[in-house]
């Protein structure tokens, strides 16, 4: 295959340039599709980024894009760009499994709004990516269909829950991907796979057609190799949707432009409480990124926000509580699996025991317990007050700063199986990402360095609600100062060396 039509930055061109060439008629979307499918066919058997590859639909979409171009019609800002879609976003007629036996054979009767927006922008959906079942997990090992492997080192996890999407971008299968982030499920795998991941402001992107996990926290967002490409995808998917009454009615132009604005005058706070809890490599990357920002004209200071560390405990009460309610709908009646029983209750209980994996069952149990009579005030209501505490700590910080800088994760990608025996140990992987979900704020992970073993280290940029412009300004300056080779796609030859 010729280099210029490669589907990813591996061939030297990213989504922005690729779309420009397809729109100009210099590259055929059909060739882009074939190149992407060839890559996936050759290498996804080992990595398992995808639950379903939609090759036929991708070829049809590519043909339609090429016909538009040849008849002089602009197919849109993502013309001919392959995009991988997390398998908890509804795709009409295409299985949407949430990596659960419960929905293994279920195909939705409609498309998620973000999926419709991809098609309208000329994007080519490659397939549906693997995740921790119902987005509950931090390693993609909770998938009922087997784990995804990290393209940087296939003995390690890609992070989760959107591990398939992060790994697909890191492997060069697609320059762009969609994920969802409830407590870090975009940013944490982005960090572990050396790609960019953005959790937008709560409400910036429609969730119509996102299978619900914890509704006061869930948000859809982009993955890409670079900040600019992620901003482009965010521009395409953002905006009000009458089908999601929590979606905001705000203009979202200028996100891509913000990536070129620099950080002159931007006030940056480095969250010291998070540095203390991170590994040496992860903390050093943040300090180094802070120097990069200061060197580019930002005013950088340290800030202590100890309340943010309570976020984890609050999250592991609030998210399971909301999940126990949202997942009540899987009752063996309306979707997917049914296991027969003597009466309705026995059918419900058998279906749910059989259809849900161990982590999902555990969280449903935890959520049901903390909402049950006698415990509601002690656990759930208290967690909601902690949520206020976290929001107030952020508000205090954003009186002095435009953005905050922190590690994305406490450590780099860990070996498969390292944390599966202890749920609490796995939950700690989200310590630094959870506060932004509790507050509804945007945050992104930017690949910045490689550790001594050559594994990627991410740096997190946090901003107040609707602070995406400032976040992207800082993110692209951090990216420009990153260690060479710190971001995906994984360089050719590296895998062969392992």
């Amino acid at each position, binding site marked *: 295959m010729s280099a210029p039509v490669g589907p990813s930055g591996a061939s030297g061109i990213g989504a922005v340039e690729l779309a420009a060439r397809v729109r100009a008629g210099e590259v055929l979307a059909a060739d882009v599709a074939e190149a992407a499918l060839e890559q996936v066919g050759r290498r996804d058997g080992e990595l398992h980024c995808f639950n379903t590859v939609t090759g036929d639909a991708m070829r049809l979409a590519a043909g339609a894009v090429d016909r538009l171009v040849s008849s002089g019609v602009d197919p849109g800002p993502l013309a001919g760009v392959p995009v991988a879609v997390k398998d908890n976003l509804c795709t009409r007629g295409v299985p949407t499994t949430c990596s659960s036996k419960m929905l293994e054979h*279920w*195909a*939705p*009767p*409609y498309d998620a709004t973000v999926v419709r927006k991809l098609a309208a922008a000329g994007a080519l959906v490659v397939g549906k990516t693997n995740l921790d079942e119902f987005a509950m997990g931090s390693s993609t090992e909770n998938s009922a269909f087997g784990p995804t492997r990290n393209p940087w080192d296939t003995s390690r996890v890609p992070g989760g829950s959107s591990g398939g999407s992060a790994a697909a971008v890191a492997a060069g299968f697609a320059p762009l991907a969609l994920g969802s982030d409830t407590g870090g499920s975009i940013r944490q795998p982005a960090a572990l796979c050396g790609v960019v991941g953005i959790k937008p402001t*709560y*409400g910036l992107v429609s969730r119509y057609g996102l299978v619900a996990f914890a509704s*006061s926290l869930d948000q859809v967002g982009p993955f890409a190799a670079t900040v600019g490409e992620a901003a482009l995808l965010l521009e395409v998917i953002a905006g009000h949707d009458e089908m999601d*009454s*929590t979606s905001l009615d705000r203009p979202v132009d200028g996100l891509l432009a913000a990536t070129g604005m620099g950080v002159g005058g931007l006030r940056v706070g480095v969250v010291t409480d998070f540095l203390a809890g991170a590994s040496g490599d992860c903390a050093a990357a943040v300090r180094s990124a802070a120097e990069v920002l200061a060197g580019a004209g930002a005013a950088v200071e340290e800030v202590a926000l100890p309340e943010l560390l*309570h976020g984890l*405990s*609050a999250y*592991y*009460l609030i998210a399971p509580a909301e999940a*126990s309610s949202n997942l*009540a709908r899987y*009752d063996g*009646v*309306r*979707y997917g699996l*049914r296991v027969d*029983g*003597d*009466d*309705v*209750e026995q059918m*419900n*209980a*058998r279906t*749910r025991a059989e259809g*849900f994996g161990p982590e999902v*069952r*555990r969280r*449903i*149990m*935890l959520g*049901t*317990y903390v909402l*049950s009579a006698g415990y509601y005030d*002690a*656990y759930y*209501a*208290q*967690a*909601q*007050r*902690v*949520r*206020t*505490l976290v*929001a107030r700590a952020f508000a205090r910080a954003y009186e002095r700063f435009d953005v905050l800088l922190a590690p994305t994760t406490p450590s780099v990608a860990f070996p498969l199986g390292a944390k599966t025996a202890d*749920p*609490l140990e796995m*939950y700690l992987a989200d310590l630094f990402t959870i506060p932004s979900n*509790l*507050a*509804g*704020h945007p945050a992104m992970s930017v690949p910045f360095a490689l550790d001594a073993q050559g594994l990627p280290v991410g740096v997190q940029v946090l901003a107040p*609600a609707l602070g995406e412009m400032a976040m992207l300004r800082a993110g692209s300056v951090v990216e420009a100062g990153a260690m060479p080779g710190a971001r995906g796609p994984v360089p050719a030859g590296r895998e062969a060396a392992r």
Partner: protein
Amino acid sequence: MAVELSPAEVQHVARLARLALSVEESEAVAGQLSAILDHVEAVRALDLEGVPATSHPLELVNVLRDDVERPCLDRADVLGGAPAVEDGRFAVPRILGEAP
């Protein structure tokens, strides 16, 4: 203060959650939930008297739309995802007793 869930409590919660847990899994879950609840004891101990609860990150009021007719999902499409269907409806095990 350590939290200890008894197997009976776990069975009660499993019933509320409509999950048919085996005895072994009930015991395992009792231990795991106890460990998680132990971990969150620190936030239970915080003095948050007077701090209001946040249930949602947005200051939203009820969102209403005009009551106008519009197309909805196709019945056959929706029922196509169900495990059992009869006469254009979701089918479930009998919920009322046999007629005498």
